[in-house]
């Protein structure tokens, strides 16, 4: 069944949020979400890299790996494509847009090891999306991830001033907030669904 790219775009932001339902990109999500500004910076970088690498990986998979029957190399090739793309973006930004480089630069190397980027590429292959669907999924996934990290950063800034039980400080608390957020996002699931 063909799902419209628009449906995929909105579904990957709300109902099938890569972070809240597929648990992708948790590591940087937990460690960067201490303040809003760096969350936003990382979020922008993730949206950009995720959209671009999903499309790139789609092209590489369908025009290079499938014709030569090299699908089993998928993991290695995807991770190389992502690492090379991030490196390239870093160099281009440094050369031509130094201002943007200083705001996003520190976040770019982090993205290579962000499992959300690789995860979205793997989901794209498993769900057999076409090019437009992959583009929508990559962009929606990035925006959904950014939405989640911004929400958590906002909540954490407020909660930092309150007293928590000792064992719950830090990661434990962030995890419970994320769980409640995931519950709230389940509320969207009546609207659209792609599974």
């Amino acid at each position: 069944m063909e799902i419209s790219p628009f449906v995929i775009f909105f579904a990957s932001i709300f109902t099938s949020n890569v972070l809240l339902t597929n648990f992708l990109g948790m590591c940087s999500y937990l460690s960067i979400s201490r303040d809003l500004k760096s969350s936003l910076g990382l979020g922008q970088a993730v949206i950009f890299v995720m959209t671009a690498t999903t499309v790139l990986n789609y092209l590489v998979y369908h025009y290079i790996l499938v014709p030569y029957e090299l699908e089993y190399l998928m993991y290695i090739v995807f991770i190389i494509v992502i690492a090379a793309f991030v490196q390239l973006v870093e160099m281009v930004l440094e050369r031509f847009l130094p201002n943007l480089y200083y705001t996003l630069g520190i976040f770019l190397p982090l993205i290579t090891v962000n499992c959300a980027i690789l995860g979205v590429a793997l989901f794209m292959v498993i769900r057999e999306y076409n090019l437009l669907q992959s583009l929508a999924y990559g962009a929606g996934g990035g925006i959904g991830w950014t939405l989640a990290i911004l929400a958590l950063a906002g909540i954490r800034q407020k909660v930092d001033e309150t007293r928590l039980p000792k064992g719950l400080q830090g990661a434990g608390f962030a995890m419970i907030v994320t769980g409640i957020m995931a519950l709230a996002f389940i509320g969207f699931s009546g609207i659209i669904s792609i599974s």
Partner: protein
Amino acid sequence: MASSNYREIAKQTLWTDNPVIRQILGICSALAVTNLVSNTLVMGIGVSLVTGFSSLTVSALRKIMPTRVRMMAQTLIIAFYVILVDIVLRAFYPDMSKALGPYVGLIITNCIIMGRCEAFAQMNKPLISFYDGFMSGMGYTLVLTAIAIVRELMGFGTILGFPILGDWWTPWTIMVMAPSAFFVLASIIWIAHSITAKKSAASDQTINKGVQASGN
């Protein structure tokens, strides 16, 4: 000397420096595969083997590896072992491979493996690196199994597919869904941190007492 070293590593990776609850690494797959105990065990064995063999390889190559390309080389080594795990799963356990979906591939970006390669295998002998990596994977498996037991028992009333709780139990649908994974892991982290906080407080007190006694 050597045996105490091994015991020390086991203690650190399984409890005092457990990768999941202390260092908060490898959370993605920890949450995603824990809805069934069987999925969790397969994933845990996979991660342990990949971590062990990656550490072994990185450690064996540590003297000839140029530092500049170290990260990239480590990623490729890890990806190589993940592909092996993936092929074995697909060939012998196709159902399991389907249930785990992309999370087998995502072992590559599991920070535990890279972390062990960087922190331990880089400066230790191959055999003990393998042990360290494998035990880190076991620490990860331990926490995941605990989460999975809670989730499967409350979500389906079963463990490993065997009915445990009987007909009177009303399954909690929430335990099968995503949010519960966050709640259960958060509770486990909370419990573990509280235990250590209590212990360190107790040992602080004894030290203080000792200081006072010697002062007197």
